[in-house]
């Protein structure tokens, strides 16, 4: 009966291992879903829980009902409430009920264990003090928020309107709202048992960004996948960059040795030939400009070279031939779609 509140899909979704952007997309997808279906689905389960709590006071019953309503909306088939507020609400109700009486806490505990929210139990004590500060107003706000899903996503205005409380609650709600509103740019999930101040959140977001980029670098640098851990990967990347730079130096040495004056002159002539084919070649301009005029060269390149070759009587045969083949090979490989 209690497990019924937890749906399997929610288990997978509530896992903290989901990447930030995946969660963001999930949340955005769920934005459109209605609340009515939520509440109607949860009512039978809620009734069951209410029966379980028959023995308690009416007051407590009402409070637990309100809590469970929020819980149900959070755990129901549409767990799109925004994990943040629903979980905070749940946390709020857990600690609140724990401060009031023992029984509901136990049931909550059972529910939580089933729902993979073990961390909430451990952090319950930590949040007790916090919760005692922001009791009624926050739960009221959460109920209203639960009634209107979208306001969570879109955010600040509606939530701030609903709070009519002390500065503490307004601060926290604004923080929660800003957390949610950060969906627009940086979406950070605050984890249970970890600090939720702005600095650590920003720190976490930064670290996630960096790890994303490290993964991308891993794909580029060959042989980086075997090494795990950021330090090893960074070392690999550094080694790769160093090796590339030494390669450039080595090849430039080779070029310096190979190039004699004659070949330089020949090269000049060939370069002029290239430039006559291209309408505008400006060295300072970005690559896009140069890309387009190079296209016809792919087909005509060899032909032009042969034409030039014939016209150059002074040119020496051997280097020109080698130049031709080399440039042809260059263009062939490039036209083949040479990819790094």
């Amino acid at each position, binding site marked *: 009966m209690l497990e019924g509140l937890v749906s399997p899909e929610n288990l997978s979704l509530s896992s903290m291992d989901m990447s930030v952007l995946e969660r963001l997309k999930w949340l955005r997808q769920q934005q459109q879903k209605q609340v009515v279906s939520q509440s109607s689905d949860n009512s039978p389960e809620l009734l069951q829980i209410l029966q379980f709590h028959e023995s308690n006071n009416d007051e407590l019953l009402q409070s637990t009902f309100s809590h469970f309503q929020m819980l149900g909306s959070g755990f129901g088939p549409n767990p799109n409430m925004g994990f943040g507020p629903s979980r905070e609400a749940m946390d709020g109700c857990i600690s609140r009920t724990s401060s009031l009486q023992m029984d509901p806490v136990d049931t909550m505990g059972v529910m939580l264990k089933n729902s993979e929210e073990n961390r909430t139990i451990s952090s319950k004590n930590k949040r007790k003090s916090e919760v005692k500060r922001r009791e009624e107003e926050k739960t009221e706000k959460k109920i209203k928020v639960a009634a209107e899903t979208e306001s969570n996503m879109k955010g600040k205005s509606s939530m701030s309107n609903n709070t009519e409380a002390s500065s503490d609650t307004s601060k926290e709600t604004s923080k929660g709202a800003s957390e949610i509103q950060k969906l627009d740019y940086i979406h950070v999930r605050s984890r249970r048992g970890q600090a939720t101040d702005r600095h650590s959140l920003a720190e976490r977001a930064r670290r996630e960004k*960096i790890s994303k*980029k490290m993964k*991308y670098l891993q794909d580029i640098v060959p042989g980086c996948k075997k090494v795990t851990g950021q330090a090893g990967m960074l070392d690999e990347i550094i080694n*790769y960059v160093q090796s590339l730079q030494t390669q450039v*130096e080595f090849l430039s040495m080779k070029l310096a040795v190979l*190039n004699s004056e004659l070949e330089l002159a020949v090269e000049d002539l060939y*370069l002029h030939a290239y430039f006559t084919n291209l309408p505008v070649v400006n060295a*300072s301009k970005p690559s896009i400009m140069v890309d387009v005029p190079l296209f016809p060269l792919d087909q005509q390149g060899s032909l032009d070279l042969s034409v030039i070759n014939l016209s150059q009587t002074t040119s020496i045969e051997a280097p020109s031939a080698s130049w031709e*083949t080399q440039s042809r090979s*260059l263009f062939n490989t490039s036209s083949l779609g040479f990819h790094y």
Partner: protein
Amino acid sequence: MASAYNPIYTDVPEKDVFALHFLQTLSNLRTQNSFSSPDNKTSDRVKKIKKAAYVSMARAAGGANRLWSRSLLHQAAKRNNKNVRFLRRKRRVTWLMRRRSNRGDPIEDVAAERLRNLVPGGGGMETSKLMEETAHYIKCLSMQVKVMQCLVDGLSPK
């Protein structure tokens, strides 16, 4: 997805572009009298060719659009003209270094420092930006290496 953001952003032009720029810079070099004269020591020529390679790579990769290429070109120009633009960068560096020292993650920072020394213009960047620049720099470097390899193969006597 998350990975879709990066590849679009760090695209590198095709080999032709690099080849063209490199050849152009080489030809510019050749027109200089100091280069073609045989009394020149090979080491000087090597240095000039290397510099030409880097500069052409920086131009081909997108000129001033990339941080590393911009700083590369600055460095090259500074050696020639001794520009005073370096001062502005230094001020920016100190501000960023102060910021960085506050949120240092020791494991990252050590390697990031080494990376900063390698990648041109790395001193004035945040770690996340550094990663992007490194990726683009690696791609461009590999392209340049391929172009030079082709050139050397073509020019080497058979």
